[in-house]
């Protein structure tokens, strides 16, 4: 088959590439909004989401609707998420007393999420560790709700 290169086809491809590149360049740069309070709000919301997910996994485990392996993996994953949120909050640069207080409150709330997920993880690994699994589930849900409320409050404040 004879080889040929139609200019129209080439122009179409070139125009598409150029359009994509131009769009990318024109987009400029943007940062996440809200300063330290905004960053804290996002981290706390991430922790709340992870704690809620951990609570759901633990509830399914207690109801014997899932396997130990799946519950363990979910709790480990959620612990990673919460720890990432904790690190983000710990690394926040604050310049005012208000922001310092926000950071402390966020860190404490996230820590409770983390502690309750660790307790649930221990319970799944060794059911003899905690006697009242129901109370543990309640603690997880309470930690998730507290983080969720704080996240919303900080979101409104920024």
């Amino acid at each position, binding site marked *: 088959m004879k080889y040929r290169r139609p200019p129209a086809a080439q122009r179409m491809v070139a125009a598409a590439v150029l359009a994509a590149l131009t769009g990318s360049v024109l987009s400029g*740069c943007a940062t996440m909004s809200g300063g330290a309070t905004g960053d804290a709000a996002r981290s706390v919301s991430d922790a709340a989401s992870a704690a809620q997910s951990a609570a*759901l996994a633990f509830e399914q485990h207690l109801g014997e609707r899932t396997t130990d392996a799946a519950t363990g993996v979910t709790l480990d994953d959620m612990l990673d998420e919460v720890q990432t949120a904790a690190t983000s909050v710990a690394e926040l640069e604050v310049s005012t007393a208000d922001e310092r207080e926000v950071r402390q409150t966020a860190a404490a709330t996230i820590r409770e999420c983390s502690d309750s997920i660790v307790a649930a993880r221990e319970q799944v690994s060794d059911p003899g560790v905690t006697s009242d699994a129901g109370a543990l589930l309640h603690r997880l849900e309470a930690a998730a709700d507290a983080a969720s409320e704080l996240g919303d409050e900080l979101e409104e404040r920024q």
Partner: protein
Amino acid sequence: MKRLLGVALGILTAIGGFVDIGDLVTNAVVGSRFGLSLVWVVVVGVIGICLFAQMSGRVAAVSGRATFEIIRERLGPRAGLANLAASFLINLLTLTAEVGGVALALQLASSVEPTLWVPVAAFAVWLVIWRVKFSVMENVTGLLGLTLIVFAVAVFLLHPDWAELAGQAMAPSVPAGETGGAYWYYAVALFGAAMTPYEVFFFSSGAVEEKWTRKDISQSRLNVVIGFPLGGILSISIAACAAIVLMPRGIEVTTLSQVVQPVVEAGGKLALAFVLVGVVAATFGAALETTLSSGYTLAQFFGWSWGKFRRPAQAARFHIAMIVCLLIGLGILATGVDPILVTEYSVVFSAVALPLTYIPILIVANDKQYMGRDVNGRLTNAFGMIYLVIIVVAAVAAIPLMIVTGAGA
């Protein structure tokens, strides 16, 4: 009767093989954050992939050559190289995500760390490509992938508020707490996930592997037109499950373990078993396809001997290229990068590469020199032009949206 069974098998494997790690993750993320308000994007994406997959299948059936091979010849080495660079890099990223997805699914079943499963998954991919017949490989992974229907079953078992779900789907809006930027970012990501470039290259190269001729066009069209939309319904089911169970709890999906939580809520351990088999089959099948696509695109651009229908010794560079691609994917995953993050980026960059993949296919499918009387009809071209606009808009918007929204954060 044999032909009917062939059609049925083709449709079933098209459904089972439709979903990959990109669809699983993106639909679950979107469902957990936006409910069903982005379902329209899945519909647009499925129509698009049907349009271009049947186009590239027809090109292969009529010409007896893979689409990418013709693109290189028809548009010249420079345009071919642009097509290769974009498609190949996205393909490599997708391959990495799929192998990582297999490892994550096996971790859910076994508790064993995914870093230990990754080499096993990559070796299994290589072994299957090396030893197993193309049709067997396609049919087995496609049929096992059908177990993902458990997502659709779960939607019914969860007894959702159907009116609310319908409201989200029919009157799309940005939910409270989300931004318009994030909404459109995930619209582009969903579109990229539905129209991943490797799918068309694999489809057309597969047609050559299976020695399609003109008489196979109607059967392949049926597979695409029936199988892909039903596969799209699976995608929507994944989003619906997340919208029903995760969204009201304020859970945003960031891991594969969260994707399966709604199914467990609906059907317990039995449903979990089904979904794990489905996820492994879907990601493993897609890992096979992306690995093969890497070999196909490179071999077809450089003019190497290629194809599973040839003995490996007769297509040595094709097989070595695939091994190298698998090793690169393995290397990327060995750094400890989160496969879900790789997936999220791969679907967005897929959207960026869409014009470079689909414009050449449209051009080749209209070339009488290759297609003779089987060139695109007016209706196909009309849809093709509409999709060209959508594809360019998605490609142009993808990176700016990624920057502005902090990758949808």
